[in-house]
């Protein structure tokens, strides 16, 4: 029955119910509806104005979905995302991951970086990270995150979580990251933050 009601009459039905001020007929929350609610923290369309909130615009879809599922299960540490991620089904998470991955990325605006660290980070990136964080971290292999142009403060917090053993790594990542000192991780963070 439902399917044969034309969209116009459906609107009329909706309006009638609306007038009564009770339940209305509405489509399930769209990817846009779900994602817009995140923008109060992550910025309009996922472009963060800084300084510590990560941008989501143009992020790898797989990385967003994995992050959200990790937050939801508690496997990935978080301050607030765990509490929020629990409010979404896996299908909703996939919808938001798809939405943000399709938004135009905008590299972080001017941030003060340590230029010596940036140079050192570049060398370390070439040696340790570029197989997964392709094109200076602008592109990605499989589930790797886009790290280029991310806010420095956010990258530093994540690097510290890895170094402290709070955030788990895949074996592949651990092989490359474990040998690095905190100072070297700081250099890599500066390098990625510098990429426009």
């Amino acid at each position: 029955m439902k399917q044969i009601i034309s969209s116009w009459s459906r609107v009329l039905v909706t309006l009638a119910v609306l007038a009564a001020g009770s339940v209305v007929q509405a489509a399930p929350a769209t990817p846009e509806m779900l994602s817009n609610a995140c923008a109060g923290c992550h910025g309009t369309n996922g472009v963060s104005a800084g300084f510590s909130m990560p941008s989501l615009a143009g992020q790898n879809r797989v990385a967003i979905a994995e992050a959200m599922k990790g937050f939801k299960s508690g496997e990935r540490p978080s301050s607030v995302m765990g509490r929020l991620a629990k409010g979404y089904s896996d299908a909703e998470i996939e919808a938001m991951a798809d939405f943000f991955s399709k938004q135009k990325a905008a590299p972080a605006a001017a941030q003060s970086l340590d230029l010596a660290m940036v140079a050192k980070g570049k060398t370390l990136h070439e040696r340790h990270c570029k197989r997964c964080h392709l094109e200076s971290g602008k592109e990605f292999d499989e589930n790797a995150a886009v790290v280029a142009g991310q806010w420095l403060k956010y990258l530093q917090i994540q690097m510290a979580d890895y170094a402290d053993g709070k955030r788990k790594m895949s074996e592949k990542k651990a092989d490359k990251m474990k040998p690095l000192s905190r100072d070297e991780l700081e250099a890599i963070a500066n390098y990625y933050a510098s990429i426009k």
Partner: protein
Amino acid sequence: MTVDRRSFLKLLSAGTAGVGGASLSMAARAAEIMPKSGRRVVVVGGGYGGTIAAKYVRMMDPSIEVVLIERNRQFVSCPFSNLVIAGERKISDLTLGYDKLAAHYGIKVVFDEVTAVDAEKKEVVTAGGSIGYDRLILSPGIDFRFDELEGYDPATTPGIMPHAWKAGEQTLVLKKKLEEMKDGGTVVLSVPLTPYRCPPGPYERTSMIAWYLKNNKPKSKIIVLDANPDITSKAGLFRKGWAKHYAGMIEYRGAKKVTVVNPAGMSVLVEGIEEVKGDVINVIPPQRAGAIAVKAGVVGPDKNWCPVNATTFESTQVKGIHVIGDACIAGAMPKSGYSANSEAKVCATNVVALMNGRELVDLSGINTCYSSITGKEAVSVAGVYKVDQGKIVAVPNSGGVSPDLSELEAIYADSWLRNIMTEMSS
């Protein structure tokens, strides 16, 4: 004369060059100032809700004209204003203009006071003239129920016993009074019964006053007179923070409703009987939806707040008027800046759907509210919301408060403010 007075009314007309001229010629008879040529949404209130509603309607359908009407040229954020009181932020950090928002999204911003709404004619009345709409979105925030406080003179009492519950001048009045107080003085803070704007706000205020006193006037104390039986939000975390940092400084008294103020004697009366004196008295009066909501007839049977449809935020009292933010009753979503932001997007989505005869979309909302406990540590509450049986409810098994005070939360809180204010202003 009218034309002169109207020189403060500036139309930031993005895209349509003719608007300014049209409005001037009409002004002399204070009639319609911006004749409608196509479909138009009028938004009243350029704060946490209104700016976002205006922006997202334009993002979702640029063929709809949007007029945003706001009484002040600059907006001062209440979030983080408690940190201004403690000397941890400047008021300029919390102040926004509308130029960029207007230019980026082609929003016509009118600086004027909306004094009436004619829902039959579908127009709002401002000091400068009337402005027609197809749909109206009200996000006027709050006004105060001063009449419920005996002895309160709305003209003079706020200068003596600041509320600082609308940010700006009032924030600075309270800050100055604390600065002028002697060490060893008593600060009295009164909290109204819920619902009021920002449930954790009074306790963050208490924390920030304590932070200032601890660092500057450590012999002083704070008495909190709460009309509610207990701390209304993040109670465990505030208690923990107060015990950790401000032991002996904060005296919290629940179920103590202030009903009388005595500005001349610098005291308040609890339930009209028990007198409490203070050197600085911060009376947070009971509240209701901004006055324009009352005038528009969209407040409900309680005469204070606006019942709305949970999907469209259309008033259940008057058709064609949507109400968002503190003024509306949004079920489980608290009266916060984040909620206002989230509600604005839901409302914009469905206003655009209604105007295009498209299917409505179910609400998905978020609230997050950070509270500072010290200059370095914060706590937060977060929630995810959906519609169930026509009501806004929290998604089960999600949300909640942070496990402890933390510096990381304070770092993210700072970025939250930066992002949400950037969303509002550009």
